[in-house]
């Protein structure tokens, strides 16, 4: 039976994680993400899971990776400064191919910035924050409902591709309360990591299947293997051989890139005959959609495209749109980040308009209406 609740976005993230099978959380308090850890501290032990308030954000992700290596689904959550601290170990999880979900409830920055105000300025950090090449998967929920569903999907993708997956929430989405329908748990699609099918004696820990993803044993379940953040061969041991380095470097990217169309999610509204399109995500998309509804009633041919996965970015879809419309407007709560992707993909086929709000506030629908009317 599905249930109707009135929840805060952060609570929906935590409850989504539990529904996905998360049984370990490590974290450190920071506004505006703290409610996630508070809910986890209440609910995890009820389910026999483990919650740990660690000594800092680095330890939070480290413990999560450790728990994942020992077989549990694990999550950490933070904001601003805490997310910056986690970057080195995010890279560790990409390299060692350890599933973990990392939630970033975005606030204003750089540095301590604006602890209680909204921002979308970590979108490029999500893609490039840790050093070295890797493939990023990041969801941007725009409602309490989506906080729940994208967190479950994040776990599914982390388990499927054996790597970190990010939930890029923001202060408005995280703290907003609204109606949410909790689906019957029987109806949820839950993905678990592939386990080795061979005996411990025949186990080659990083030998990938055809999908590019190696099955994963857990410490303690009878398999002996080595985990390292050094570039390694199929056996998981450090290598200096150029062909092995290249193989690993390519595989951790291609295992995701090959399936980008499976991963990419987006939502289109009023797109059929649109001449102007607003591309927005997260909290901003709520104001944008409101503006578009009002203008549609006035006969303005404007549509909305909302990436749900920011990474991988819906490139093919944006390319198609850019061929059909005159203008794409990209309003963001940063100095222009996703617009860089849109400009690159549109490549002059239509006009791309960069709109930035970096004063800690959310765009009002009227402001977005003004942008549209200027072009209509």
């Amino acid at each position, binding site marked *: 039976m599905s249930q109707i609740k009135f929840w805060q976005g952060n609570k929906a993230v935590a409850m989504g994680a539990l529904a996905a099978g998360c049984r370990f959380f490590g974290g450190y308090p920071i506004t505006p993400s703290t409610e996630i850890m508070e809910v986890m501290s209440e609910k995890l032990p009820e389910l*026999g899971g483990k919650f740990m308030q660690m000594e800092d954000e680095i330890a939070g992700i480290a413990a999560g990776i*450790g*728990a994942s290596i020992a077989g549990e689904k694990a999550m950490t959550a933070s904001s601003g400064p805490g997310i910056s601290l986690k970057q080195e170990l995010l890279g560790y999880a990409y390299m060692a191919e350890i599933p973990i979900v990392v939630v970033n409830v975005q606030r204003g920055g750089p540095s301590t910035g604006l602890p209680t105000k909204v921002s979308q300025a970590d979108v490029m950090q999500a893609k490039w924050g840790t050093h070295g090449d890797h493939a990023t998967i990041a969801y941007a929920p725009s409602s309490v409902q989506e906080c729940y569903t994208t967190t479950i999907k994040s776990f599914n993708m982390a388990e499927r591709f054996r790597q970190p997956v990010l939930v890029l929430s923001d202060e408005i989405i995280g703290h907003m309360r609204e109606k949410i329908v909790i689906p019957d748990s029987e109806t949820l699609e839950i993905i678990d990591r592939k386990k080795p099918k061979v005996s411990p004696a025949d186990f080659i820990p990083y030998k990938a299947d055809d999908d590019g993803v190696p099955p994963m044993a857990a410490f303690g379940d009878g398999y002996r293997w080595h985990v390292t953040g050094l570039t390694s061969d199929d056996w998981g041991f450090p290598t200096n051989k150029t062909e092995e380095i290249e193989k690993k470097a390519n595989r951790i990217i291609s295992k995701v890139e090959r399936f980008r169309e499976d991963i990419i999610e987006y939502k289109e509204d009023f797109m059929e005959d649109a001449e102007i399109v607003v591309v927005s995500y997260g909290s901003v998309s709520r104001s944008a959609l409101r503006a578009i509804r009002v203008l549609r009633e006035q006969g303005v041919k404007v549509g909305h495209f909302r990436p749900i996965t920011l990474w991988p970015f819906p490139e093919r879809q944006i390319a198609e749109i850019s061929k059909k419309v005159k203008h794409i407007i990209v309003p963001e709560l940063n100095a222009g980040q996703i617009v860089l992707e849109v400009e690159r993909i549109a490549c002059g086929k239509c006009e791309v308009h960069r709109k930035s709000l970096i004063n800690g506030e959310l765009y009002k629908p009227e402001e977005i209406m003004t942008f549209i009317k200027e072009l209509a």
Partner: protein
Amino acid sequence: MPREDVKSFLRTKYLPHIWCPGCGHGIIMHAVLRAVTELKIPQEKLCISSGIGCSSRMPGYIDACTLHTAHGRSLAFATGVKMANPELTIVNVMGDGDATAIGGNHFIHACRRNIGIAAVIMNNNIYGMTGGQASPTTPEDTFATTALYGAIDPVFDICKLAIGAGATYVARSTVAQPMLCEQLLKKAIEHQKNGFSVVEIVSYCHTQFGRRNKRGKAFDNIKYLRDNSIMKAKADTMSAEELKGKMIIGEFLNINNAGEYTKRYDEVILRAKKA
């Protein structure tokens, strides 16, 4: 030559190891292997974790569940492993820089929680892997590539730090006493059921530290460690003046009833389920 049971714990395919010939770290690995084999810990239930450094390369050579993490962070990783599977025996090895500089915060908090992990600190008084920079245990007035005019920073006493932070088993040996290393390691590993244990093993890096401090040969260092270490029982009878410049070795603390963290967490689960 290592015993047969010890050899069976080695990933011989990955030998020779990366350590310089004569490095003190090998003596510690051998002692760790003798301890785990004598305790008859199954390889599948043994996790050897480490940070980054010459010392932290040890897990790669041991045929168990091995986890080579990031510089300073190993105890935080190991904490997650232990919480997810309290049945695993965890031996977490670190260098002095790894454990007390970049990883100092994780170290004191692992001590405070009293989580069932045996921490082994391979203290060679220097950053070996990066070429001989000063660490928090580089003695005052000695030389390092980042202390060319003599170090002035006071050092950490790792054992006192561990006791102050709440570890419940704390001991020290040097690589000049391999049998004592083995004995203390065995007790520390067995102590996991009671909580967090720390064994500081004073090692040496003749290549990076010794060379700049008149102890350029491996043997000079073994001799130095042997001549300057005193068993705790004897040290207890000596004056502060007599103990100047000496390392006290042996067991400093062994508390069995403080409550190991994963067991205490089981109580949390019981309380939550009742609530």
